[in-house]
């Protein structure tokens, strides 16, 4: 598997660390409803097909990426930077 880092270019997956499902939304810090926290921490859609997931390029630039990958074929159809330098926050 090769992930195309927007900063470093294509690198093999072993350079990256897997963080997991990127679609989960963390409840607001003052949310005291335990069920919504448990949903965030434990519950997953676990799709067979396209999966949006976070990877960190821990072996190089250390940026966190949102990768869209097919869990059946492992084919990657999109890589986006997340965080302060991402397209979304520009």
């Amino acid at each position: 598997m090769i992930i195309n880092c927007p900063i470093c270019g294509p690198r093999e997956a072993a350079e990256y660390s897997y963080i997991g499902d990127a679609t989960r939304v963390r409840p607001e810090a003052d949310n005291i409803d335990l069920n919504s926290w448990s949903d965030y921490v434990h519950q997953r859609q676990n799709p067979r097909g396209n999966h949006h997931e976070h990877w960190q390029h821990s072996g190089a630039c250390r940026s966190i990426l949102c990768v869209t990958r097919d869990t059946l074929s492992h084919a990657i159809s999109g890589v986006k930077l997340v965080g302060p330098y991402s397209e979304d926050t520009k």
Partner: protein
Amino acid sequence: MSRYSAFSLFKNALSGHKNWKRAWRAPEPQKKYDVIIIGGGGHGLATAYYLAKEHGITNVAVLEKGGLGSGNIGRNTTIIRSNYMLGANTRFYEHSMKLWEGLSNDLNYNMMFSQRGLINLAHTPGQMDAFSRRGNAMLMEGVDAELIDNQEVCRRVPGLYCGQNTRFPILGGLCQPRAGTARHDAVAWGYARGADQYGVDIIEHCEVIGFIKDGDTVTGVKTNRGEIFAPKIGVSVAGNTSTVMKLAGIDKLPIESHVLQAFVSEPLKPFLNTVVTYGAGHLYISQSDKGGLVFGGDLDGYNSYAQRGNLPIFEHVAAAAVTMFPVLSRLRLLRNWGGIMDMSMDGSPIICKGPLPGLYLNAGWCYGGFKATPAAGWCFAYTIAKDQPHPLNADFTLDRFYTGHELDEGGSGPYPGHQ
């Protein structure tokens, strides 16, 4: 149905082994059953067997989308142990161990169950402490455990490098003498034959593609071979749990599917007569009766439904094997493959009624479901027959993730594979 024995072997040898009967029938699905089990893996077949044997419920169908044994039951590295620390897990896996000990006789099928022992290696004083704590917890539940030092490890596992000239020298280990291995295919075939003898219909190449519901209540399944109805439907589909449960309208579960690989070397003369696990990385290794070394390690580490893995894990696992057994460095690999694991968020299983009326769930087996096969089938059958869990699986609920009763053996938090 004929019994297998030395005599039947002799008799069939006389006719050149051409007259053996099919071990189970290949029936057409009926319209209606008392119980449908989805998934003809080890767990589904064992469930059907114990439904018939322990509860007299024989009007049962097991629906399998592929051929029998094509899932994880035919893909695992066959390690059987009950060396857990948390009470609920220890009692459950020890029940499984006891069922294994009588299984070949019970099923009249040779499981090739070999209690060759298992040694978990320790490389730090902290690990030795953790092992002595776990060993004591096991002894208190009546499970066998032995803490052994470096010299004893060395004596028991001759090929292992026990010297100091390595990054993580071996300090000792925790041994469970009654642990071991079994023939995985025989488990599927033995339970299938056993269930079939009670009249259970085992229907291969029958994929569940939808559920039939009356309001919230599940009343039947849609398959590629037509609709089939039953008041009780058990889901036991390992790595496909999320996919199948989505068909019933359950969008999220505390489960991720991950690929785990297994590796088999070219055959060697007898070399390793026990199971050993490395403690400074993740590797477990044993030798099969055919002589091949069977080993595996970590998950590939990302969600996957592909029944194959990638090379970095192979490199990692092979490196650990050679660190432990330097004599293996020139050994060639014969085969490798992957299977899809239903990784639960706390590393422990789910065997429960629900989450919808009419539905029962057996899932979350992570990479340890082979050893659980007899007890999982036994407990799942009990839960389906009695509409309530047996004390042995009462803690394996789905809602423990909401109530703070997770069973996290490794104390490592909700990350699949960090156990």
